[in-house]
């Protein structure tokens, strides 16, 4: 017991700096945020924020009230982020899997190619999404130039304004995101023993048969983790929209993070913004719960 007590104290000393950082940057702000979400806090009440009018759940009713602008904008942004995920996650995964299967073969220059495909992942978001913003420009952009050359369009398309903006952001994020999934899937593929394939080949199994009965089941744990993580990261989506829309937080394809930024720092409604932020937190916590459960299941 004495030893246990000593261990507790030593461990506490070791994790104290990390614990303080977590306390000040995560725990206290999140609790404060929940508190603010019940207040009518705007720029006028900010100086005396603790005595700002307490409005109970009104902010929450407002952000889900389709009769109000703020409600329509927020619900639209929730739909936008779901749509964004429904497009980028499956497309990104399929590309990543296809390339992982491809790169798992032996060919000259394999190491270089493997390093090369990681480039999009390691290049800073701000750099790459600015470049994609350039590529999607209507009159001077590469996308329209190529589409025109192959005859798919006659007139330049406006990509970054209006509903087509979602398609542009999805394309750019898929391009930026698949290499990481591919990396994880490749490491999963390398963990599959070659003997399994040899045995299947002796039985004369086709490529599809081998994929169905060996590769896919063996990759499933990695796939599951990667998909759950993608769902969580999906709700973090900010950089790609912020940069490609040129910092315009009022776009019709805006995701919640942009809407919250606008509500709090442009419209200066901190209470409403915090209520939206709490909703986002709950959504992410829900998925994190799934992820923890699925890890537990994996261990048993």
């Amino acid at each position, binding site marked *: 017991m004495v030893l246990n007590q000593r261990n507790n104290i*030593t461990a506490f000393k070791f994790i104290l700096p990390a614990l303080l950082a977590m306390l000040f940057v995560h725990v206290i702000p999140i609790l404060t945020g929940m508190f603010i979400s019940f207040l009518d806090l705007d720029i006028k009440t900010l100086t005396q924020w603790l005595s700002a009018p307490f409005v109970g759940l009104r902010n929450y009713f407002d952000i889900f009230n389709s009769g109000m602008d703020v409600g329509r904008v927020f619900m639209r942004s929730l739909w936008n982020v779901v749509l964004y995920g429904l497009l980028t996650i499956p497309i990104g995964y399929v590309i990543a899997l296809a390339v992982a299967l491809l790169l798992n073969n032996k060919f000259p220059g394999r190491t270089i190619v493997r390093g090369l495909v990681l480039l999009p992942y390691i290049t800073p978001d701000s750099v790459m999404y600015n470049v994609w913003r350039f590529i999607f420009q209507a*009159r001077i952009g590469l996308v329209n130039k190529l589409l025109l050359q192959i005859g798919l369009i006659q007139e330049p398309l406006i990509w970054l304004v209006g509903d087509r903006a979602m398609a542009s952001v999805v394309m750019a994020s898929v391009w930026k995101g698949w290499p990481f999934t591919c990396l994880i899937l490749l490491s999963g593929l390398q963990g599959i023993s070659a003997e399994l394939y040899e045995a299947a080949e002796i039985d004369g199994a086709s490529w599809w048969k081998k994929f169905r009965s060996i590769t896919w089941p063996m990759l499933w744990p990695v796939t599951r983790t990667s998909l759950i993580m993608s769902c969580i990261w999906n709700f973090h989506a900010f950089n790609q929209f912020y940069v490609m829309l040129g910092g315009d937080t009022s776009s019709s394809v805006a995701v919640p993070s942009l809407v919250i930024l606008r509500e709090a720092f442009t419209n200066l409604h901190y209470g409403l913004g915090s209520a939206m932020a709490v909703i986002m937190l709950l959504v992410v916590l829900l998925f994190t719960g799934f992820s923890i459960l699925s890890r537990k299941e994996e261990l048993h």
Partner: protein
Amino acid sequence: MTYTNRKKLKKVFLMIGVAAVVISVLIPYLWMVSGSFKSTLEIQSADIMKEELSPRWIPREPTFDNYMKVNKTVRMLDYMKNSLIISGGTMFFSVVISLFAAYALSRINFRLKRLYELSLFSTQMFPGIAFLIPYFILFSKVYKLTGIPMKDTYWGMIFTYTSFALPFSILMLRNFLDSIPISLDEQAQIDGCNRRQAIFRVLFPVITPGVTAVAIYSFIMAWNEILFASILTGRHTKTVSLGLMEYITTQQSRWGGMLAACILVSVPVVIFFTILQKQIIDGLVQGATKG
């Protein structure tokens, strides 16, 4: 078809596939590099509808202007300095703090250890937007109450980013430490080292790959962050990722300058990555699959 023919055909398809992948990865980079050597006039006057004005892969009159004037309209070099200080500071603190915490998680049995692990795992998932508003308000309040400026200061940003980097860094280093036999540091302690010496003299050298991965992860995280930087930085601390957006305003689009700046901003990250590719990949894969 004979066996060798089929093998050859498979090889051809394989190479075509690999080429397609490599090309689609490289196209945006080539376009970026090509654009960075074009004059603003050439980019602005381009028009895909007119054959003679259509933007080209090879600049009509290649120029180094965009690179020479990189600090002129937008103070890009100052932003680079700010980013280097903030990312460097984040890297240092995140390594030191996560090393201690990871050591405790890996080597000591303590109460509520499981709960601490779980809270690390969950905070890593929190979207920044969930605590940006209260964090901003608390920043202002701290200044008001204590007179310590937090907004638009280097250390305010370093503190913020270090805290962002910690959960993933701690879990990643814990994994590395778990793979080192405990007898190593027990022996050191028998030989008269205290715990701190055991960490820095004995364990630190063996887990260099893990430490490197954590260092780079923290650096890149801070270098790339946009959301908090857009609210918490100002004239003195603006970082590169925000600076890049200043080239395009409603009045003027300086695409050439932006693309040249993009290349400069990517350089530190790409250098880091190329030198330490293996460590980073191992670290990332471990972190993503084992958590």
